[in-house]
């Protein structure tokens, strides 16, 4: 296959792209008792997918992505708590809007910097929001957050299922699917291609006259909005929101999920979130310290040897067996 053919083909749907969705629906029937956990996995996939846009495609290294997850989570929480606005889908849109506006505003100023300064600024933005949520207790519930929120019926038909989380699971799956379609279209558009160009060779993109910064700001905004949707789903599915939705641990956590799966590959978020969360579910409760040690060693090994995560490893194995060793 020539390079031109490969480029022209790669946006086409592949047969294996149906697998995650088939698996998700199969899980719905196969594990009816684990759907609460399943919904968390789907939400994490969406969050990691949003990070993949900035980190994997645009190459912007951020430690503050949880700011947008938290903004979305608090938006639906506060709307339900103070205005009694419990309609879920408009809540998702509002969360996307709020997180997107924060992403746009912070992106416009932050993305002028790079390197350590950018890393620090994203961290500071998130810390500001975290402290704001902590201080504004009248609005946000402060340290304890907002427990016991309840939301209206999805589409006016399906009420949230507090026992088995069936509707939450399908709702999160539908939201993930829609967001994924948007991300996939974006990534394979000319806009997505130019982002990859910015990541791979900033100097050259400037030289050919690409509007580098505006593209970065735009992708940052879209990514923030998607992270906001993930946060809103979190609040709606769990019926609570607290300070844990913001903070360094959630930012680092989603980054780890994405890296282990493989970044800049769309499906890395799926593989990473599923593998990480299932392992965490099994191991972390029983052996928390050993789990942390294992995650740490894995990260060190990934950074040193397997920079492209699980998907990257599968790809290089496939290449090797196909005899196209590169």
């Amino acid at each position, binding site marked *: 296959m020539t390079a031109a053919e490969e480029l022209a083909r790669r946006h086409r749907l592949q047969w294996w792209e149906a697998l995650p969705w088939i698996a998700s629906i199969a899980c719905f029937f196969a594990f009816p008792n684990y759907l609460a956990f399943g919904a968390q996995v789907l939400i994490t996939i969406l969050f990691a997918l949003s990070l993949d846009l900035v*980190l994997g495609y645009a*190459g912007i*290294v951020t*430690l503050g992505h949880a700011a947008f997850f938290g903004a979305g989570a608090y938006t639906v929480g506060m709307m339900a708590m103070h205005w009694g606005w419990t309609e879920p889908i408009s809540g998702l849109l509002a969360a996307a809007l709020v997180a997107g506006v924060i992403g746009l505003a912070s992106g416009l*100023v*932050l993305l*002028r*910097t790079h*390197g*350590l*300064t950018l*890393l*620090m*600024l994203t*961290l*500071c*933005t998130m*810390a*500001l929001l975290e*402290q*704001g949520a*902590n*201080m504004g207790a009248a609005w946000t519930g402060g340290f304890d957050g907002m427990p016991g929120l309840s939301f209206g019926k999805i589409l006016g038909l399906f009420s949230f299922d507090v026992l088995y989380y069936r509707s939450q699971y399908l709702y999160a799956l539908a939201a993930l699917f829609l967001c994924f379609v948007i991300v996939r279209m974006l990534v394979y558009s000319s806009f997505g291609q130019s982002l990859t160009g910015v990541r791979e060779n900033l100097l050259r993109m400037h030289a050919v006259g690409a509007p580098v910064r505006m593209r970065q700001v735009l992708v940052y905004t879209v990514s923030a909005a998607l992270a906001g949707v993930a946060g809103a789903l979190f609040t709606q599915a769990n019926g609570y929101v607290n300070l844990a939705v913001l903070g*360094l*641990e959630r930012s*680092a956590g989603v*980054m*780890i999920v994405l*890296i282990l799966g493989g*970044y800049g590959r769309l499906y890395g978020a799926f593989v990473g979130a599923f593998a990480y969360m299932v392992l965490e579910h099994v191991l972390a409760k029983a052996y928390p*310290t*050993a789990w*942390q*040690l294992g*995650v*740490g*060693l*894995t*990260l*060190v*090994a*990934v*950074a*040193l040897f397997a*920079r492209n995560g699980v998907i990257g490893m599968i790809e290089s194995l496939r290449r090797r067996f196909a005899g196209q060793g590169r």
Partner: protein
Amino acid sequence: MDVISILLGGIAAGMVLFIVSVGLSVTMGLMGFVNLAHGGFAMLGGYAIVLSMKHWGLPFPAALVFGFAVVAAISVVLERLLYARLYLATELDQVLFTIGLVFVMIASVTLGVGPETQTVVLPEWLRGQTDLGFITYRTYSLALIVAGTALMVALWLGFERTRIGARIRAAVDNRRMAQSMGVDVGRLFTLTFALGSGIAAVGGGLGAEILGLDPQYPLRYLAYFLIVVSVGGLGRVSGVFFAAVLIGVLDFVLKIYFPKGGTMFIYALTLVFLLARPQGLFGSKGAS
């Protein structure tokens, strides 16, 4: 509390920040390596110091030397074996690697020593109060201020007046140029890395009184160390010193007057400051 004692308390806290962060500033300035595990070396040093005092009965100053030596040795091994492979890697790989290293450090300490907070038993001559004539203040805080200032002066002299210092400055300003003039930047880096980690280790022990010492230490204070370094400017010892004192005092004052969310102002100020001066207090544009 009157103004002077608040200032002294803040400056003492700032000194601890300075002692821990100064190595990070130099190594980041020298290699552009985003080392998020630096606080981990401070923690390991703190543990070496506390445990050697507890189990072997080492006196406090000897324990500080011991902590410095142990952590400097560990950091040389890590630098040669692992860090050196990632100098040319992307920022993302460096961030991942060092976050992984922090996790490994936290977990190892939790497994080996336990999750509880460690306390430093200060020797008799550092406890109690000292009368300075115009004010009576905690001896230990005053000792911290003296130690931090002494370290600042020593580092400044080392940087400005010695050959190695001149090489480090040259490499921070323009690594390629320094290399082509025959400076062995790799070896220089190993040396400064060991020195910086060792000083951080001493800071971990000295600061245990103020910052506490438990396995979560490297993550809890990560943002503070990074703020000090980026506000001070990469590779600038004096910049880190002033930034550390500034943030120490601000944090101390804000915690007294706005106990709820005083840190918010520090983040906000850092944000505004870095947007206006991304190269830090004294950094030059070329260094970043």
